[in-house]
């Protein structure tokens, strides 16, 4: 018995060591999302015998990016790295450290059509020449959620305000009805600066939001930006906007029923669904109706898969095969419906619609609709700023100063632009040589 087990183990071990090429995939999907991701890898590994994708959880987005950078410096980077959207410019600038996806798929002669992807998704990860640099994986966008029960209690129709004017009127009614927390937000910069700009067709920075070159400058101190941030500051002062923090802390305040309205990631739907007592709806972001062309379309957040440089051709072939596998509509459908991330190819969106998923989960297609509301303009394609991890925090610090009533909106946004531009110049100096 023992000998037989041993022999079997040996045979299996020898077999896999000879035949399979291992592909390391570092990611940041914890919890339920991690399980979904592991299922994808397992499915790929079962579908063929030549390659084995080994998925490794490396902590939060900044942590796994830092780990991969350190590993690259030490000469043992993973093959595939999941990088969040704000890290895009940093990865792009690292020529020699990465392999553009378009080139990888071309070399491996795997089918790959960038036009299969939603324009807002593809645009985010494509350079000006039209080459897709990284493989879109998990994308979401900011949505506006309301607690319908709280609306009814305040004597309001349980319908989400469409404009910021209607929003303010509803907020006052909710406050008057004794609602402790009227409105909160997750991801303040992503929501109220980045997506706000795209939604109103305003530039976040010059040079097509940085996509046209590293010599870009922030433009988030325009009159409309100032007006919006001042409005939020005013709401905070009147106790109608409760600031929750820089990441997804707002989700919890809404899920618990504490806050009546929230702007949060499309991915938060899973959390809200879990609380069966919560009567909520998912809606488009509010907009200013006196702005011409608004609403435009919102932009994505989330992450894409980057291929690291310096590996063997055979391994790259495996990576290409894996990406071709991930592009299949049925795999996309599984990922989209299992996680709440938006479907990133048009085919997957169609397939999901036909499967009846959106009928069973009303509103689940709102994020896609918001992302594709209009064909994207240079202002609403996405953004690409160097060291935007830092840049975003600068914006958030200045927003916090306004929400705390310590700074005037105009002064804060002027400071955000000034400080943000310093970071951009430093990045340009390090990357341009």
């Amino acid at each position, binding site marked *: 018995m023992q000998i037989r087990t041993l022999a079997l183990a040996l045979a299996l071990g020898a077999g896999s060591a000879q035949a399979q090429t291992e592909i390391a995939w570092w990611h940041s999907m914890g919890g339920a999302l991690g399980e979904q991701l592991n299922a994808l890898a397992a499915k790929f590994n079962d579908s063929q015998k030549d390659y084995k994708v080994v998925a490794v959880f490396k902590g939060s987005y900044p942590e796994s990016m830092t780990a991969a950078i350190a590993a690259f410096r030490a000469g043992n980077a993973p093959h595939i790295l999941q990088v969040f959207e704000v890290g895009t410019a940093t990865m792009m600038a690292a020529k020699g450290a990465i392999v553009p996806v378009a080139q990888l798929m071309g070399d491996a002669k795997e089918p790959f059509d960038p036009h299969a992807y939603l324009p807002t998704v593809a645009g985010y990860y494509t350079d000006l020449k039209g080459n897709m640099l990284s493989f879109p994986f998990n994308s979401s966008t900011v949505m506006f959620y309301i607690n319908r029960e709280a609306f009814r209690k305040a004597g309001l129709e349980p319908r989400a305000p469409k404009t910021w004017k209607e929003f303010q009127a509803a907020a006052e009614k909710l406050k008057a009805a004794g609602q402790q*927390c009227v409105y909160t937000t997750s991801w303040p910069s992503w929501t109220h600066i980045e997506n706000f700009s795209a939604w109103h067709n305003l530039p976040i920075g010059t040079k097509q939001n940085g996509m046209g070159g590293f010599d870009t400058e922030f433009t988030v101190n325009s009159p409309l930006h100032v007006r919006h941030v001042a409005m939020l500051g005013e709401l905070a002062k009147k106790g109608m906007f409760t600031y929750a923090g820089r990441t997804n802390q707002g989700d919890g305040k809404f899920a618990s029923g504490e806050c009546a309205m929230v702007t949060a990631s499309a991915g938060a739907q899973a959390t809200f669904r879990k609380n069966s007592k919560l009567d909520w709806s998912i809606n488009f972001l509010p907009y200013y109706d006196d702005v011409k062309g608004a609403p435009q379309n919102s932009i994505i957040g989330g992450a894409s898969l980057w291929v690291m440089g310096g590996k063997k051709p055979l391994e790259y072939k495996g990576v290409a095969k894996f990406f071709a596998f991930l592009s299949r509509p049925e795999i996309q459908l599984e990922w989209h419906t299992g996680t709440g991330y938006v479907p990133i190819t048009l085919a997957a969106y169609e397939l999901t619609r036909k499967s009846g998923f959106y009928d069973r989960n009303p509103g689940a297609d709102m994020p896609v609709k918001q992302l594709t509301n209009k064909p994207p303009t240079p202002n609403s394609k996405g953004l690409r700023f160097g060291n935007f991890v*830092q840049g975003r925090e600068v914006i958030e610090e200045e927003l916090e100063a306004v929400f705390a009533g310590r700074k005037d909106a105009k002064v804060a946004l002027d400071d955000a632009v000034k400080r943000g531009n310093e970071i951009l110049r*430093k990045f340009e100096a390090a990357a341009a040589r």
Partner: protein
Amino acid sequence: MEKRVVFRSAWLPYALLAPQIAVTLVFFFWPAAQAIWFSFQLQDAFGLRTEFVGLRNFEALFADSRYLASFRTTAVFSVLVAFFGIAISLLLAAMADRVVRGALAYRTLLIWPYAVAPAVAGVLWAFIFAPSVGVVTYVLRRWGIDWNWILRGDQAMLLVVIASVWKQVSYNFLFFLAGLQSIPRSLVEAAAIDGAGPARRFWTVVFPLLSPTTFFLLVVNIVYAFFDTFGVIDATTQGGPAQDTQILVYKVYYDGVKAADLGGSSAQSVILMCIVIVLTALQFRFVERKVQY
């Protein structure tokens, strides 16, 4: 008479010291040297392009108003942590020293927090003071105090100070208790016979005799506030809101690890290294004079 061990062998003392020296070289001198070298460079995140820029990183730092603000934050933070850490533990030690029954239980409980990792301590206090679900927040709201350290800088500072002090009190307590127990009873009794009350006995007899301990703890606590409170801050405020709790060491981490600006981060750590060297030297030079061993 002086006790002294004399090694006959020429190489044995060096061999015995070698492991410690090796550890210090690898884990302190080598990284420190590398930090100094990096502080003169401008690098991209992946280390693909490196340029020698001389003192430009340092110039940029001192032109940055937020870096200068971080000095003030660090000063406020470390003074608060050192002062309250020492004052509270001295009070507790003086009390515990007088306890007759159950002394061991008291001491064990007071030493307990020292076994808690800084990050855990931070999370613990962050929960107690959490803006919407915290126990203390609930009570404060009843008193009409709007407690939200996610937005208010002064409250965030208070939170990290409380967590850091709580963590350090046990350590200080141990030293003070040992110091108190080494004070000859006869001195205190003599003062009592001369008619000095408890407060007077403490300030004129006990406290001066504790001064070496206090001085030692002052140095240790300042160094603690400068470096070891990193975990507390990372687990709670992460330097926010609006950099109100961003002490120097946290900024080094943030700029170097999260923002991938190795040059700027190294320059900061070099400056930090200099500050601690100078501070410790100053403390030994001036404060030590007032200490009676």
